[in-house]
Protein backbone atom coordinates (compact mmCIF):
# COMPACT_ATOMS: atom_id res chain seq x y z
CA UNK A 1 0.00 0.00 0.00
CA UNK A 2 1.57 3.24 -1.06
CA UNK A 3 0.01 6.61 -1.20
CA UNK A 4 1.25 7.30 2.29
CA UNK A 5 4.64 7.10 3.91
CA UNK A 6 3.87 4.48 6.48
CA UNK A 7 3.36 1.44 4.34
CA UNK A 8 5.80 -0.58 6.37
CA UNK A 9 3.85 -0.24 9.61
CA UNK A 10 1.36 -2.95 10.32
CA UNK A 11 -2.02 -1.53 11.03
CA UNK A 12 -2.49 -3.61 14.15
CA UNK A 13 0.95 -3.21 15.72
CA UNK A 14 0.62 -2.33 19.41
CA UNK A 15 -3.02 -1.54 18.81
CA UNK A 16 -6.12 -3.04 20.32
CA UNK A 17 -8.71 -4.53 17.99
CA UNK A 18 -11.60 -6.94 17.61
CA UNK A 19 -10.45 -10.54 17.84
CA UNK A 20 -12.40 -13.51 16.54
CA UNK A 21 -12.95 -15.88 19.45
CA UNK A 22 -14.34 -19.36 19.24
CA UNK A 23 -17.27 -20.30 21.42
CA UNK A 24 -16.04 -23.26 23.49
CA UNK A 25 -19.13 -23.66 25.63
CA UNK A 26 -22.74 -22.63 25.81
CA UNK A 27 -25.31 -22.82 28.56
CA UNK A 28 -28.98 -22.06 28.28
CA UNK A 29 -30.45 -20.88 31.58
CA UNK A 30 -34.08 -20.23 32.29
CA UNK A 31 -36.08 -17.26 31.06
CA UNK A 32 -33.97 -16.28 28.08
CA UNK A 33 -30.70 -16.17 29.98
CA UNK A 34 -27.65 -17.62 28.26
CA UNK A 35 -23.96 -18.03 28.90
CA UNK A 36 -21.34 -18.29 26.19
CA UNK A 37 -17.79 -19.36 27.03
CA UNK A 38 -14.76 -18.16 25.05
CA UNK A 39 -11.19 -19.37 25.05
CA UNK A 40 -8.71 -16.53 25.37
CA UNK A 41 -5.95 -16.77 27.99
CA UNK A 42 -4.97 -13.17 27.22
CA UNK A 43 -8.40 -11.70 27.85
CA UNK A 44 -9.14 -14.02 30.76
CA UNK A 45 -6.03 -12.84 32.56
CA UNK A 46 -6.56 -9.16 31.85
CA UNK A 47 -10.28 -8.80 32.58
CA UNK A 48 -11.26 -7.27 35.93
CA UNK A 49 -14.69 -7.05 37.54
CA UNK A 50 -16.47 -4.06 35.98
CA UNK A 51 -14.67 -4.23 32.66
CA UNK A 52 -16.86 -4.84 29.66
CA UNK A 53 -16.43 -6.25 26.17
CA UNK A 54 -17.95 -5.33 22.85
CA UNK A 55 -19.27 -8.35 20.96
CA UNK A 56 -20.05 -8.56 17.30
CA UNK A 57 -21.07 -11.22 14.82
CA UNK A 58 -19.93 -10.15 11.35
CA UNK A 59 -22.32 -12.66 9.76
CA UNK A 60 -25.38 -11.57 11.72
CA UNK A 61 -27.97 -9.15 10.41
CA UNK A 62 -27.01 -6.73 13.20
CA UNK A 63 -24.55 -3.93 12.54
CA UNK A 64 -23.34 -2.52 15.84
CA UNK A 65 -21.54 -4.44 18.54
CA UNK A 66 -23.21 -4.99 21.90
CA UNK A 67 -21.62 -4.38 25.31
CA UNK A 68 -21.42 -7.12 27.94
CA UNK A 69 -19.71 -7.47 31.30
CA UNK A 70 -17.86 -10.71 31.54
CA UNK A 71 -19.13 -13.32 33.95
CA UNK A 72 -16.92 -16.03 35.45
CA UNK A 73 -13.22 -16.26 34.67
CA UNK A 74 -11.72 -19.75 34.44
CA UNK A 75 -8.06 -18.89 34.75
CA UNK A 76 -6.77 -22.44 34.50
CA UNK A 77 -8.50 -22.99 31.20
CA UNK A 78 -8.04 -19.44 29.88
CA UNK A 79 -11.80 -19.28 29.44
CA UNK A 80 -14.16 -16.44 30.23
CA UNK A 81 -17.95 -16.31 30.32
CA UNK A 82 -20.44 -13.87 28.89
CA UNK A 83 -23.77 -14.05 30.65
CA UNK A 84 -26.66 -12.32 28.97
CA UNK A 85 -30.38 -12.01 28.61
CA UNK A 86 -32.14 -12.03 25.25
CA UNK A 87 -33.88 -8.67 24.88
CA UNK A 88 -33.57 -7.83 21.18
CA UNK A 89 -31.99 -8.61 17.81
CA UNK A 90 -28.38 -8.66 18.94
CA UNK A 91 -28.82 -10.91 21.94
CA UNK A 92 -31.22 -13.12 19.97
CA UNK A 93 -28.61 -13.73 17.34
CA UNK A 94 -25.98 -14.42 20.02
CA UNK A 95 -28.30 -16.93 21.63
CA UNK A 96 -28.52 -18.81 18.33
CA UNK A 97 -24.78 -19.33 18.22
CA UNK A 98 -23.36 -22.77 18.82
CA UNK A 99 -20.18 -24.21 20.20
CA UNK A 100 -17.58 -23.95 17.44
CA UNK A 101 -18.97 -20.68 16.08
CA UNK A 102 -16.94 -17.53 16.28
CA UNK A 103 -17.74 -14.04 17.55
CA UNK A 104 -15.63 -10.91 17.34
CA UNK A 105 -14.74 -9.50 20.73
CA UNK A 106 -13.07 -6.25 21.78
CA UNK A 107 -11.83 -5.61 25.29
CA UNK A 108 -11.18 -5.17 28.10
CA UNK A 109 -13.00 -1.85 27.92
CA UNK A 110 -13.90 0.71 30.56
CA UNK A 111 -12.79 1.03 34.16
CA UNK A 112 -13.21 -1.80 36.65
CA UNK A 113 -14.47 -1.64 40.22
CA UNK A 114 -11.67 -0.53 42.58
CA UNK A 115 -11.77 -3.79 44.52
CA UNK A 116 -8.35 -3.06 46.01
CA UNK A 117 -9.65 -0.17 48.13
CA UNK A 118 -9.40 -0.99 51.84
CA UNK A 119 -12.40 -1.65 54.10
CA UNK A 120 -15.45 -3.87 54.49
CA UNK A 121 -17.10 -4.55 51.14
CA UNK A 122 -20.74 -5.02 50.18
CA UNK A 123 -21.47 -6.21 46.64
CA UNK A 124 -25.00 -5.56 45.42
CA UNK A 125 -26.42 -7.33 42.38
CA UNK A 126 -29.86 -6.93 40.88
CA UNK A 127 -30.93 -9.47 38.25
CA UNK A 128 -28.39 -9.86 35.46
CA UNK A 129 -26.27 -7.31 37.35
CA UNK A 130 -24.70 -10.36 38.95
CA UNK A 131 -22.24 -10.58 36.01
CA UNK A 132 -19.31 -8.49 37.26
CA UNK A 133 -19.41 -10.08 40.71
CA UNK A 134 -18.90 -13.56 39.34
CA UNK A 135 -15.27 -12.61 38.85
CA UNK A 136 -15.04 -10.30 41.89
CA UNK A 137 -16.03 -12.91 44.47
CA UNK A 138 -13.07 -15.29 43.95
CA UNK A 139 -10.68 -12.31 44.03
CA UNK A 140 -12.10 -11.04 47.31
CA UNK A 141 -12.12 -14.52 48.81
CA UNK A 142 -8.55 -15.18 47.83
CA UNK A 143 -7.33 -11.90 49.32
CA UNK A 144 -9.27 -12.71 52.51
CA UNK A 145 -11.30 -9.53 52.44
CA UNK A 146 -14.28 -8.77 54.64
CA UNK A 147 -17.04 -8.90 52.06
CA UNK A 148 -20.47 -10.18 51.23
CA UNK A 149 -22.88 -10.20 48.31
CA UNK A 150 -26.50 -9.13 48.36
CA UNK A 151 -28.19 -10.66 45.32
CA UNK A 152 -31.77 -9.99 44.36
CA UNK A 153 -34.03 -11.00 41.52
CA UNK A 154 -37.72 -11.02 40.68
CA UNK A 155 -38.13 -14.67 41.55
CA UNK A 156 -36.15 -17.81 42.42
CA UNK A 157 -36.16 -18.88 38.78
CA UNK A 158 -33.98 -15.94 37.76
CA UNK A 159 -31.68 -16.10 40.78
CA UNK A 160 -28.97 -17.89 38.87
CA UNK A 161 -25.47 -19.23 39.65
CA UNK A 162 -26.54 -20.48 43.09
CA UNK A 163 -24.25 -23.54 43.08
CA UNK A 164 -21.29 -21.32 42.18
CA UNK A 165 -22.27 -18.74 44.78
CA UNK A 166 -22.53 -21.37 47.52
CA UNK A 167 -18.79 -20.93 48.21
CA UNK A 168 -19.21 -17.28 49.09
CA UNK A 169 -21.07 -15.21 51.67
CA UNK A 170 -24.27 -14.35 49.84
CA UNK A 171 -27.68 -13.25 51.01
CA UNK A 172 -30.52 -13.63 48.58
CA UNK A 173 -33.70 -11.64 48.08
CA UNK A 174 -36.57 -12.15 45.68
CA UNK A 175 -39.44 -9.79 44.99
CA UNK A 176 -41.92 -12.62 45.51
CA UNK A 177 -40.13 -14.33 48.39
CA UNK A 178 -39.68 -17.53 46.41
CA UNK A 179 -36.07 -17.77 47.57
CA UNK A 180 -34.13 -15.93 50.29
CA UNK A 181 -35.80 -12.96 51.90
CA UNK A 182 -38.84 -11.40 50.33
CA UNK A 183 -38.37 -7.84 49.15
CA UNK A 184 -36.18 -5.58 47.11
CA UNK A 185 -32.40 -5.57 47.31
CA UNK A 186 -32.53 -1.99 48.47
CA UNK A 187 -34.46 -3.02 51.56
CA UNK A 188 -31.52 -5.16 52.67
CA UNK A 189 -28.77 -2.56 52.67
CA UNK A 190 -26.32 -2.42 55.55
CA UNK A 191 -24.71 0.76 56.89
CA UNK A 192 -21.86 -1.28 58.41
CA UNK A 193 -19.67 -1.27 55.31
CA UNK A 194 -16.95 0.97 53.94
CA UNK A 195 -17.24 0.14 50.27
CA UNK A 196 -20.23 -0.68 48.12
CA UNK A 197 -20.04 -2.01 44.58
CA UNK A 198 -23.38 -2.30 42.80
CA UNK A 199 -24.64 -3.44 39.45
CA UNK A 200 -28.25 -3.80 38.35
CA UNK A 201 -31.27 -1.91 37.10
CA UNK A 202 -30.99 1.88 37.02
CA UNK A 203 -33.78 2.29 39.61
CA UNK A 204 -31.98 0.01 42.05
CA UNK A 205 -28.70 1.85 41.59
CA UNK A 206 -30.36 5.18 42.20
CA UNK A 207 -31.87 3.91 45.45
CA UNK A 208 -28.54 2.45 46.55
CA UNK A 209 -26.91 5.83 45.89
CA UNK A 210 -29.65 7.56 47.87
CA UNK A 211 -29.31 5.19 50.82
CA UNK A 212 -25.59 5.86 51.23
CA UNK A 213 -25.74 9.52 50.23
CA UNK A 214 -24.95 10.99 53.62
CA UNK A 215 -22.99 8.07 55.00
CA UNK A 216 -19.21 7.73 54.91
CA UNK A 217 -19.47 4.59 52.74
CA UNK A 218 -17.81 4.90 49.33
CA UNK A 219 -20.23 3.67 46.66
CA UNK A 220 -19.34 2.61 43.12
CA UNK A 221 -22.00 1.83 40.55
CA UNK A 222 -21.69 0.11 37.21
CA UNK A 223 -23.95 2.05 34.86
CA UNK A 224 -25.42 1.11 31.51
CA UNK A 225 -26.32 3.28 28.59
CA UNK A 226 -27.16 2.29 25.03
CA UNK A 227 -23.83 2.24 23.17
CA UNK A 228 -22.68 2.84 19.64
CA UNK A 229 -18.96 2.15 19.58
CA UNK A 230 -17.91 1.18 23.11
CA UNK A 231 -14.56 2.79 22.32
CA UNK A 232 -15.19 6.42 23.19
CA UNK A 233 -15.41 7.82 19.68
CA UNK A 234 -19.13 8.29 19.01
CA UNK A 235 -20.28 10.02 22.22
CA UNK A 236 -23.41 7.91 22.03
CA UNK A 237 -23.36 6.69 25.63
CA UNK A 238 -23.02 9.94 27.56
CA UNK A 239 -24.78 10.71 30.81
CA UNK A 240 -24.78 13.52 33.33
CA UNK A 241 -21.89 13.23 35.75
CA UNK A 242 -20.28 15.78 38.08
CA UNK A 243 -16.73 16.65 36.99
CA UNK A 244 -14.18 19.33 37.84
CA UNK A 245 -15.93 21.56 35.33
CA UNK A 246 -19.40 21.07 36.80
CA UNK A 247 -22.03 18.72 35.45
CA UNK A 248 -21.03 17.30 32.08
CA UNK A 249 -22.21 14.65 29.64
CA UNK A 250 -19.63 11.94 30.22
CA UNK A 251 -19.14 8.74 28.22
CA UNK A 252 -20.08 5.57 30.06
CA UNK A 253 -17.82 3.44 27.86
CA UNK A 254 -14.69 5.51 28.36
CA UNK A 255 -15.03 7.24 31.74
CA UNK A 256 -17.28 4.46 33.13
CA UNK A 257 -19.01 2.11 33.28
CA UNK A 258 -18.09 2.24 36.97
CA UNK A 259 -18.74 5.64 38.54
CA UNK A 260 -18.59 6.92 42.08
CA UNK A 261 -22.23 7.23 43.14
CA UNK A 262 -21.72 10.76 44.43
CA UNK A 263 -20.77 11.94 40.94
CA UNK A 264 -23.84 10.56 39.22
CA UNK A 265 -26.67 13.00 38.48
CA UNK A 266 -30.12 11.38 38.63
CA UNK A 267 -32.50 13.74 36.99
CA UNK A 268 -34.95 11.73 34.95
Amino acid at each position, binding site marked *: *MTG*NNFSSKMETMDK*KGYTPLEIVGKREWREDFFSLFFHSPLLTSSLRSGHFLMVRDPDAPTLLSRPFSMGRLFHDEGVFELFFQVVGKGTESMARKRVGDTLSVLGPLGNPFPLEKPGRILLIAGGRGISPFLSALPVLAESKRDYSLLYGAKTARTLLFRPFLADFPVSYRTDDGSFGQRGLVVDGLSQEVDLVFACGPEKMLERVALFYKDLPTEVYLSLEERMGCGTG*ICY*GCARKVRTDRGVEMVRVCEEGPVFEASRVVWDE
Partner: protein
Amino acid sequence: MSDLSFSIGPLRFPNPVVLASGTAGYGYELEPYIDLDLLGGFITKGIYPAPRAGNPSPRVYETPSGMLNAIGLQGIGMVRFRDEVLPFWERYKPPLGINVAGECPEDYARVVEYLDSHPRIDFYEINLSCPNVQTGGRSPSWFPEETKRILSTLRPLTKRPLIAKLSPHARSVEEIAFAAQEAGADGVSLINTFIGLAVDLKSRRPMLHNLFGGVSGPAVKPMALAMVYKVFQRVSLPILGMGGIVSGRDLLEFIVAGASGVQIGTATIVDPQAPLRILREASELLPSLGCDSLGELRGSLKPYR
Protein backbone atom coordinates in the same frame (compact mmCIF):
# COMPACT_ATOMS: atom_id res chain seq x y z
CA MET B 1 2.33 0.04 -6.73
CA SER B 2 -0.81 2.00 -7.24
CA ASP B 3 -1.31 5.64 -6.42
CA LEU B 4 -4.11 6.13 -3.96
CA SER B 5 -3.64 9.83 -3.38
CA PHE B 6 -6.02 12.59 -4.38
CA SER B 7 -6.16 16.34 -4.02
CA ILE B 8 -8.59 19.06 -3.17
CA GLY B 9 -7.10 22.25 -4.56
CA PRO B 10 -3.49 22.42 -3.38
CA LEU B 11 -4.14 19.98 -0.56
CA ARG B 12 -2.95 16.42 -1.17
CA PHE B 13 -4.52 13.50 0.67
CA PRO B 14 -2.20 10.46 0.81
CA ASN B 15 -5.09 8.03 0.42
CA PRO B 16 -8.87 8.15 0.06
CA VAL B 17 -9.79 7.10 3.61
CA VAL B 18 -10.84 10.18 5.54
CA LEU B 19 -12.57 9.72 8.88
CA ALA B 20 -16.00 11.35 8.97
CA SER B 21 -17.01 14.03 11.40
CA GLY B 22 -18.60 12.87 14.62
CA THR B 23 -17.68 9.24 14.14
CA ALA B 24 -14.09 9.34 15.32
CA GLY B 25 -14.15 11.91 18.11
CA TYR B 26 -11.36 14.48 18.10
CA GLY B 27 -8.81 11.89 17.08
CA TYR B 28 -7.05 10.95 20.32
CA GLU B 29 -9.91 8.64 21.24
CA LEU B 30 -8.82 6.40 18.34
CA GLU B 31 -5.14 6.31 19.27
CA PRO B 32 -5.39 3.01 21.20
CA TYR B 33 -6.87 1.31 18.15
CA ILE B 34 -5.13 2.56 15.01
CA ASP B 35 -2.03 4.35 13.84
CA LEU B 36 -3.57 7.67 12.83
CA ASP B 37 -0.69 8.30 10.45
CA LEU B 38 -2.04 5.65 8.10
CA LEU B 39 -5.24 7.61 7.43
CA GLY B 40 -5.92 9.62 4.31
CA GLY B 41 -7.33 12.39 6.45
CA PHE B 42 -9.31 13.16 9.57
CA ILE B 43 -12.31 15.38 10.16
CA THR B 44 -13.10 16.42 13.72
CA LYS B 45 -16.38 16.32 15.54
CA GLY B 46 -18.40 19.44 14.79
CA ILE B 47 -16.81 22.51 16.39
CA TYR B 48 -19.13 25.20 17.74
CA PRO B 49 -17.93 28.45 19.25
CA ALA B 50 -19.06 27.46 22.77
CA PRO B 51 -19.03 24.08 24.50
CA ARG B 52 -22.27 22.11 24.14
CA ALA B 53 -23.69 19.36 26.32
CA GLY B 54 -25.55 17.67 23.48
CA ASN B 55 -28.73 15.66 23.90
CA PRO B 56 -29.74 13.44 26.80
CA SER B 57 -29.35 9.68 26.29
CA PRO B 58 -30.36 7.43 24.64
CA ARG B 59 -28.52 8.97 21.75
CA VAL B 60 -27.99 5.99 19.46
CA TYR B 61 -30.05 3.09 18.19
CA GLU B 62 -29.48 0.37 15.66
CA THR B 63 -31.76 0.33 12.61
CA PRO B 64 -31.80 -2.19 9.73
CA SER B 65 -28.26 -2.03 8.26
CA GLY B 66 -27.78 1.35 9.84
CA MET B 67 -27.83 3.44 12.93
CA LEU B 68 -29.74 6.39 14.23
CA ASN B 69 -27.90 9.02 16.25
CA ALA B 70 -28.79 12.21 18.00
CA ILE B 71 -25.62 13.18 19.81
CA GLY B 72 -26.70 16.77 19.48
CA LEU B 73 -23.24 18.00 18.65
CA GLN B 74 -21.84 17.58 22.14
CA GLY B 75 -18.51 19.33 22.03
CA ILE B 76 -15.78 21.13 23.92
CA GLY B 77 -16.07 24.35 21.93
CA MET B 78 -13.43 26.10 19.84
CA VAL B 79 -11.27 27.36 22.71
CA ARG B 80 -10.64 24.03 24.38
CA PHE B 81 -10.39 22.46 20.93
CA ARG B 82 -7.54 24.79 20.04
CA ASP B 83 -5.78 24.41 23.37
CA GLU B 84 -6.26 20.71 23.96
CA VAL B 85 -6.81 18.98 20.63
CA LEU B 86 -4.71 20.78 18.03
CA PRO B 87 -1.43 20.16 19.92
CA PHE B 88 -2.25 16.44 19.84
CA TRP B 89 -2.48 16.55 16.08
CA GLU B 90 1.02 18.00 15.70
CA ARG B 91 2.27 14.46 16.33
CA TYR B 92 0.43 13.12 13.28
CA LYS B 93 0.65 13.96 9.61
CA PRO B 94 -2.69 13.28 7.83
CA PRO B 95 -4.65 16.25 6.54
CA LEU B 96 -6.81 17.55 9.36
CA GLY B 97 -10.20 19.01 8.61
CA ILE B 98 -12.26 21.03 11.05
CA ASN B 99 -15.97 20.32 10.87
CA VAL B 100 -17.45 23.75 11.47
CA ALA B 101 -20.91 23.84 12.98
CA GLY B 102 -23.26 26.62 13.79
CA GLU B 103 -26.80 27.72 14.36
CA CYS B 104 -26.36 30.91 12.33
CA PRO B 105 -23.81 32.20 9.81
CA GLU B 106 -22.00 34.13 12.57
CA ASP B 107 -21.27 30.91 14.50
CA TYR B 108 -19.45 29.45 11.51
CA ALA B 109 -17.49 32.65 10.98
CA ARG B 110 -16.40 32.83 14.62
CA VAL B 111 -14.99 29.29 14.50
CA VAL B 112 -13.05 29.86 11.29
CA GLU B 113 -11.73 33.23 12.45
CA TYR B 114 -10.67 31.87 15.82
CA LEU B 115 -8.89 28.78 14.48
CA ASP B 116 -7.47 29.93 11.17
CA SER B 117 -4.15 31.17 12.52
CA HIS B 118 -3.28 27.69 13.74
CA PRO B 119 -0.80 25.97 11.40
CA ARG B 120 -2.01 22.40 11.98
CA ILE B 121 -5.35 22.98 10.30
CA ASP B 122 -5.51 21.81 6.68
CA PHE B 123 -9.09 22.44 5.64
CA TYR B 124 -12.60 23.20 6.84
CA GLU B 125 -15.66 21.10 6.31
CA ILE B 126 -18.67 23.35 6.71
CA ASN B 127 -21.53 21.38 8.18
CA LEU B 128 -24.52 22.85 6.39
CA SER B 129 -26.57 19.81 7.16
CA CYS B 130 -26.87 18.70 10.74
CA PRO B 131 -30.41 17.40 11.15
CA ASN B 132 -30.35 16.91 14.91
CA VAL B 133 -29.95 20.30 16.42
CA GLN B 134 -33.32 21.68 15.65
CA THR B 135 -35.81 18.87 16.09
CA GLY B 136 -36.18 17.26 12.69
CA GLY B 137 -35.63 20.72 11.38
CA ARG B 138 -34.53 22.40 8.24
CA SER B 139 -30.88 22.68 7.41
CA PRO B 140 -29.13 25.42 5.39
CA SER B 141 -28.18 23.05 2.60
CA TRP B 142 -31.83 22.49 1.73
CA PHE B 143 -31.71 25.92 0.11
CA PRO B 144 -29.27 27.20 -2.50
CA GLU B 145 -29.44 30.77 -1.17
CA GLU B 146 -28.61 29.85 2.42
CA THR B 147 -25.82 27.59 1.26
CA LYS B 148 -24.37 30.47 -0.71
CA ARG B 149 -24.81 32.99 2.07
CA ILE B 150 -22.88 30.97 4.63
CA LEU B 151 -20.09 29.99 2.27
CA SER B 152 -19.70 33.54 0.95
CA THR B 153 -19.36 34.79 4.52
CA LEU B 154 -16.60 32.29 5.18
CA ARG B 155 -14.71 32.51 1.90
CA PRO B 156 -12.86 35.78 2.70
CA LEU B 157 -11.89 34.53 6.16
CA THR B 158 -9.46 31.79 5.12
CA LYS B 159 -7.20 30.68 2.33
CA ARG B 160 -7.62 27.05 3.29
CA PRO B 161 -9.96 24.77 1.34
CA LEU B 162 -13.62 25.05 2.28
CA ILE B 163 -15.64 21.91 1.80
CA ALA B 164 -19.43 22.12 2.03
CA LYS B 165 -21.09 19.17 3.72
CA LEU B 166 -24.58 18.71 2.34
CA SER B 167 -27.83 17.23 3.57
CA PRO B 168 -29.44 14.42 1.57
CA HIS B 169 -32.83 16.04 2.11
CA ALA B 170 -32.44 18.85 -0.40
CA ARG B 171 -34.83 18.39 -3.31
CA SER B 172 -31.86 18.32 -5.59
CA VAL B 173 -28.44 17.94 -3.98
CA GLU B 174 -26.75 18.79 -7.27
CA GLU B 175 -28.41 22.20 -7.25
CA ILE B 176 -27.02 22.85 -3.76
CA ALA B 177 -23.58 21.62 -4.80
CA PHE B 178 -23.70 24.03 -7.72
CA ALA B 179 -24.57 26.86 -5.36
CA ALA B 180 -21.65 25.88 -3.14
CA GLN B 181 -19.32 25.96 -6.13
CA GLU B 182 -20.56 29.41 -7.08
CA ALA B 183 -19.97 30.65 -3.55
CA GLY B 184 -16.34 29.59 -3.73
CA ALA B 185 -16.31 26.20 -2.03
CA ASP B 186 -13.36 23.97 -2.94
CA GLY B 187 -15.20 20.69 -2.57
CA VAL B 188 -18.36 19.05 -1.29
CA SER B 189 -18.91 16.28 1.23
CA LEU B 190 -21.86 14.00 0.46
CA ILE B 191 -23.86 12.96 2.40
CA ASN B 192 -24.81 13.78 5.95
CA THR B 193 -27.41 11.63 7.68
CA PHE B 194 -31.08 11.19 6.78
CA ILE B 195 -33.67 12.23 9.34
CA GLY B 196 -35.10 9.14 10.98
CA LEU B 197 -37.25 7.99 13.85
CA ALA B 198 -37.46 4.74 15.81
CA VAL B 199 -40.33 3.83 18.08
CA ASP B 200 -40.32 1.77 21.25
CA LEU B 201 -43.65 0.01 20.98
CA LYS B 202 -43.91 -0.94 24.64
CA SER B 203 -43.39 2.51 26.11
CA ARG B 204 -44.59 4.39 23.03
CA ARG B 205 -41.51 6.50 23.42
CA PRO B 206 -39.05 7.39 20.70
CA MET B 207 -35.93 5.21 20.91
CA LEU B 208 -33.84 8.39 21.06
CA HIS B 209 -34.42 11.00 23.74
CA ASN B 210 -34.23 13.68 21.04
CA LEU B 211 -37.11 12.07 19.09
CA PHE B 212 -35.50 12.36 15.63
CA GLY B 213 -32.00 11.25 14.78
CA GLY B 214 -29.72 10.94 11.78
CA VAL B 215 -29.59 7.68 9.83
CA SER B 216 -26.21 6.45 8.59
CA GLY B 217 -24.59 3.19 7.60
CA PRO B 218 -25.00 0.68 4.75
CA ALA B 219 -28.75 1.33 4.58
CA VAL B 220 -28.12 4.71 2.96
CA LYS B 221 -25.39 3.62 0.54
CA PRO B 222 -27.57 3.46 -2.59
CA MET B 223 -28.94 6.93 -1.93
CA ALA B 224 -25.47 8.31 -1.25
CA LEU B 225 -24.07 6.78 -4.46
CA ALA B 226 -26.92 8.29 -6.48
CA MET B 227 -26.23 11.74 -5.04
CA VAL B 228 -22.47 11.49 -5.61
CA TYR B 229 -23.07 10.54 -9.22
CA LYS B 230 -25.57 13.35 -9.80
CA VAL B 231 -23.30 15.96 -8.24
CA PHE B 232 -20.33 14.63 -10.22
CA GLN B 233 -22.35 15.11 -13.41
CA ARG B 234 -23.29 18.66 -12.46
CA VAL B 235 -20.30 20.36 -10.81
CA SER B 236 -16.55 20.23 -11.24
CA LEU B 237 -15.68 20.33 -7.52
CA PRO B 238 -13.97 17.35 -5.92
CA ILE B 239 -16.37 15.21 -3.92
CA LEU B 240 -15.79 13.44 -0.62
CA GLY B 241 -18.32 10.64 -0.84
CA MET B 242 -19.77 8.85 2.14
CA GLY B 243 -22.74 6.90 3.38
CA GLY B 244 -22.44 3.28 4.40
CA ILE B 245 -18.92 2.49 3.26
CA VAL B 246 -17.82 -0.64 5.12
CA SER B 247 -15.50 -2.35 2.61
CA GLY B 248 -12.87 -1.61 0.01
CA ARG B 249 -15.43 -2.55 -2.58
CA ASP B 250 -17.85 0.09 -1.26
CA LEU B 251 -15.05 2.66 -1.31
CA LEU B 252 -14.20 2.02 -4.95
CA GLU B 253 -17.87 2.13 -5.93
CA PHE B 254 -17.99 5.72 -4.66
CA ILE B 255 -14.88 6.54 -6.73
CA VAL B 256 -16.50 5.01 -9.83
CA ALA B 257 -19.57 7.17 -9.16
CA GLY B 258 -17.35 10.26 -9.12
CA ALA B 259 -15.95 10.77 -5.62
CA SER B 260 -12.35 11.97 -5.28
CA GLY B 261 -12.01 10.52 -1.80
CA VAL B 262 -14.39 9.06 0.72
CA GLN B 263 -15.24 9.33 4.36
CA ILE B 264 -15.81 6.47 6.72
CA GLY B 265 -18.31 7.02 9.50
CA THR B 266 -20.45 4.26 10.92
CA ALA B 267 -17.88 1.61 10.00
CA THR B 268 -15.42 3.16 12.46
CA ILE B 269 -18.08 3.08 15.16
CA VAL B 270 -18.64 -0.60 14.42
CA ASP B 271 -14.90 -1.36 14.47
CA PRO B 272 -12.22 1.26 15.14
CA GLN B 273 -9.81 -0.58 12.84
CA ALA B 274 -12.30 -0.74 9.95
CA PRO B 275 -10.88 2.34 8.15
CA LEU B 276 -7.51 0.67 7.72
CA ARG B 277 -9.09 -2.62 6.68
CA ILE B 278 -11.16 -0.75 4.09
CA LEU B 279 -8.01 1.01 2.83
CA ARG B 280 -6.16 -2.27 2.56
CA GLU B 281 -9.04 -3.94 0.74
CA ALA B 282 -9.35 -1.06 -1.71
CA SER B 283 -5.63 -1.00 -2.43
CA GLU B 284 -5.66 -4.74 -3.06
CA LEU B 285 -8.74 -4.54 -5.26
CA LEU B 286 -7.59 -1.65 -7.43
CA PRO B 287 -4.98 -3.54 -9.48
CA SER B 288 -7.48 -6.35 -10.12
CA LEU B 289 -9.65 -3.75 -11.84
CA GLY B 290 -6.78 -2.91 -14.16
CA CYS B 291 -6.14 0.47 -12.56
CA ASP B 292 -2.88 1.99 -11.34
CA SER B 293 -4.47 4.93 -9.63
CA LEU B 294 -7.73 6.07 -8.13
CA GLY B 295 -7.86 8.77 -10.78
CA GLU B 296 -8.36 6.19 -13.52
CA LEU B 297 -11.40 4.86 -11.75
CA ARG B 298 -12.90 8.22 -10.83
CA GLY B 299 -16.24 8.87 -12.49
CA SER B 300 -15.81 5.84 -14.72
CA LEU B 301 -19.42 4.68 -14.39
CA LYS B 302 -20.81 3.84 -17.83
CA PRO B 303 -24.61 4.04 -17.92
CA TYR B 304 -26.24 1.67 -20.38
CA ARG B 305 -27.67 4.49 -22.47
